C-alpha cells in the first residue's frame, strides 16, 4: 500500500511524456490481452445475444448483431421443453459425487504407486494406464451389463459408479507425489505419522494445484457427458442437463437456434460462475502444474 502511494506521488512529479511512457511500459500487456479477451468472450456474447433474438432475426442478413427487441421469451420456452431444474440438480449431484469419489480413490492409489513397494506394482500400474487408453465407447456394453446386475439402471448412481476410479487422475497424481522430496515424508514418519497421516499432512497440501487441475478436467468432462447418461437413464427424474440440450439440437430440421442458445446459456452459466469465483485458485494451479 505504501509503495503504491509512493509510486503515484512519484509519477505525478514527472513530465507528461515520460508519464505516458512509464504507463505504457507498465501496461503494454493490456494491448495484447484485450483483443484476446474479446476473442475469447465473443462466442459467449454471441450465445447470449442469439438467445435474445427471434427466430427470423437469427439468419436475416439485414438484421444487426444486436437483437431489435430483447426477447426473453426464449428462456421460458426452453424451460418448458424439459424439466431443466431437475436436470440441473442431477448434474450437480452426479458431477459432485464423481469428483469426491475420484479424489479419494486417486489419492490412495497414487500414493501406493508412488511410495509403496508391493508385488506386481509395475504390472498393475500398466493396467491403470491401459484404462486411460480405452475409449469409453468400447466398454459401454460391459459397463451396462454390470450396472444392470447391480440393479442400478435408471438411477443416479448408474452415472457415478463407472467413473469413481480414474486411471488418468491416478497417473497425474502419482507423478506429482514423486516430485515431493522423500525427506519430508521420512521426517513425518519420525514424528509418528502413519501412511494416512503422511498423506494428509505432507503430500496433499503440496500437490493441491494438481488436485485442482484434475478436478476441473473431471468436472467439465462429466458435466458435459451425453451418451452414457442417455444410455443408462430412462426417466426425467434422473437425467442430466446435456440431455435437455440434446432435445433442442434436432437432427431432422436444423437446430432451433434461439432456444438452443438459451439452453446453452443456462447449462454453461453454473460452470462459468464457479470458475469466476475460484478463478485465482484455478489459474494458480495451472501455473504450478505447468512449471513442473
Amino acid at each position, binding site marked *: 500500500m505504501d509503495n503504491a502511494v509512493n509510486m503515484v506521488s512519484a509519477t505525478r512529479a514527472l513530465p507528461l511524456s515520460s508519464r505516458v511512457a512509464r504507463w505504457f511500459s507498465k501496461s503494454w500487456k493490456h494491448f495484447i490481452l484485450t483483443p484476446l479477451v474479446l476473442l475469447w468472450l465473443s462466442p459467449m456474447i454471441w450465445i447470449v445475444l442469439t438467445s435474445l433474438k427471434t*427466430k*427470423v432475426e*437469427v*439468419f*436475416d*442478413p*439485414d*438484421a444487426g448483431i444486436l437483437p431489435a427487441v430483447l426477447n426473453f421469451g426464449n428462456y421460458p420456452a*426452453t424451460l*418448458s*421443453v*424439459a424439466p431443466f431444474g431437475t436436470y440441473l440438480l442431477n448434474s450437480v449431484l452426479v458431477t459432485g459425487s464423481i469428483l469426491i469419489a475420484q479424489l479419494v480413490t486417486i489419492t490412495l492409489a497414487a500414493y501406493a504407486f508412488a511410495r509403496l513397494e508391493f508385488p506386481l506394482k509395475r504390472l498393475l500400474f500398466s493396467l491403470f494406464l491401459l484404462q486411460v487408453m480405452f475409449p469409453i465407447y468400447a466398454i*459401454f*456394453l460391459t459397463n*451396462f*451389463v454390470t450396472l*444392470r446386475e447391480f440393479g442400478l439402471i435408471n438411477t443416479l448412481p448408474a452415472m457415478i459408479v463407472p467413473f469413481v476410479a480414474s486411471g488418468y487422475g491416478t497417473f497425474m497424481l502419482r507423478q506429482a507425489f514423486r516430485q515431493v522430496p522423500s525427506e519430508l515424508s521420512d521426517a513425518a514418519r519420525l514424528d509418528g505419522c502413519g501412511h494416512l497421516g503422511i498423506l494428509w499432512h505432507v503430500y496433499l497440501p503440496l500437490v493441491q494445484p494438481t488436485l485442482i487441475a484434475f478436478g476441473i478436467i473431471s468436472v467439465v468432462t462429466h458435466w458435459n457427458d*451425453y*451418451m452414457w447418461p*442417455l*444410455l443408462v437413464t*430412462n*426417466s426425467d427424474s434422473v437425467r442430466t442437463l446435456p*440431455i435437455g440440450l*440434446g*432435445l*433442442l439440437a*434436432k*437432427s*431432422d*430440421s*436444423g*437446430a*432451433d437456434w434461439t*432456444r438452443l442458445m438459451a439452453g446453452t446459456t443456462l447449462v454453461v452459466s453454473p460452470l462459468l460462475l464457479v470458475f469466476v469465483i475460484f478463478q485465482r485458485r484455478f489459474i494458480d494451479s495451472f501455473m504450478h502444474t505447468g512449471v513442473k
Partner: protein
Amino acid sequence: MSSSKFTLSRRKFLAATAAIPAIGLAPGLIRSARASGPVKLQFMYPVGVSGDINRIVSGMVADFNAQHPGIEVEAIYAGSYDNTEQKVITSLGINEPPSLWLPINSALQTFLGLDALEDITDLAKADDIYDDFLPGFLNTCISDDRLYGLPFQPSTPVLYYNKDAFKAAGINKAPDTWDELFEVAKAVTLRENGELKRWGLTIGGGWHDWMFECYCRQNELVPWQKDKVLFDRPEAVEALTFWKQMVDGGVMPPASTWQGSANDFLAGHTAMLYHSTGSLTNLRTSASFEVGVAFMPKNKTYGAAQGGGPLMIAKNQSDEKKEASWTFARWMTNTENQAKWSRATGYLAVRKSAWAAPEMQSYLAEVPAAKVALDQSQYAGAFLQVPGYHRVREHLKSALDRTLAGEIEAAAALTEANNNSNREIQRVMRRQQS
C-alpha cells in the same frame, strides 16, 4: 435356542441348500402375482424435428395411459435416431428390450437381422391397417410380404425455394425436370465481380445419400435390394454425373452440412434447397422471405425416398406385453392422433382417413405446402433398407463427396462404393447367421 452359538447341523444345511432354487424362483412368483396390475411397457423414441415433440409425445402417452387403465406406457426420450438405435440394441444385448421403439425405417433389416421384431401381419390384416394406411408409407415396414411395424412419422425430401429470389430473376414457377432445375439454378445464382453471393441450389449435406436415392428413383432405379446395393447401375451414374455438372456449372456447392444448408437457405445464401419435409415448419417460421415448396424435379419419373420412422414391437417379450404394445401402436396411429400429430410436427399423417379429417383439411388450406409432400409421397419408397446400413451410407456419401470434389470419376466412385457396401452387407449377414 438354548445356545447363542451358531450351530449348523448337516440336515439343516442340506435343507437350506435345497431351498435355494425355490428362493431363486421367488421373483418369478412375485411377478406373476403382480400380473393383475397394469401391464408396463417401455417406449423409446427419438426427437428429430423440434424439442416440443418431447412434450407432444409424452402428452400423447399420458392420454393413452389415462384411457387404458390396464396398460402403463413409460415414454423414454432416447436422443437422435442413431442414439435411439444404440440404446435399443444395448437393451437387446441383455435380453431386456423395450416393448416398442421408433427407429428410422432404414433400420428395418438391422433389427430383423437381430431377430428383434414381432411380425404383426395377421393383427394388421384383421384390422383396417392395409386399407387405410397410405401404401407408400406401409411399404417401408414390409420385408418378404410380412409387416414389422406401423409407420408413425414419415418424411420425404422436397424442394424448397426462395420466392423473392425467383421473382427477382423473373421466374414464376418451380422447376419440374432436371433440365429445368439446372436452368433455374443458373438463373438464380448470384455473383458480383466474380464473387459468389448466392448459390442456385444446395442439396442438404449429411443426408445427401438420401437425396441421391431420390435422384436414382427419379431415374427409375431403386438402388438397393434386401441383401445388396446397386450403386454401379448406369441410372445411378447418370444421376451423380448430373450433380457433378451442376457443381462444375458453378450453381451448386460441392459440399454442405445438414444444419448449415438450412441456415444458408434462411440467410439467402442459396435460392433452392433439398431438405426434409420435417424442416417445413422451421423454415416457414424462420425465413424473412416467402418460402415455396415443390416436388423434387423428375427425370424419367417423379421419385422420393422415405425418411422418418415406424413404431416397432419387440419379439422378445411376454404375449401379454405384445398385445398391449399392439394396442398402443394402433392407438398412436389412429385417425384422430395422426391428424393431430401431423399438424403439430410437420410429419406426414400415415392414414388416408386422417388427411380427410376436417381439421387436416383446414390445415392444408392454411399451409398448402404440406400438400406437396403428401402428393409426392405416392412416388416414394423405403430408404436403403439393407443390413449394416450405417456403413453403407458412409461408403455412398464418401463416393458422392469425392466425385463432387473432383477427386474421382462418378462411375469409378460408385463402383467402389458398391463393392465396399456389398462386402459390408455380406459380412453383417454372415455374422448374423452364425
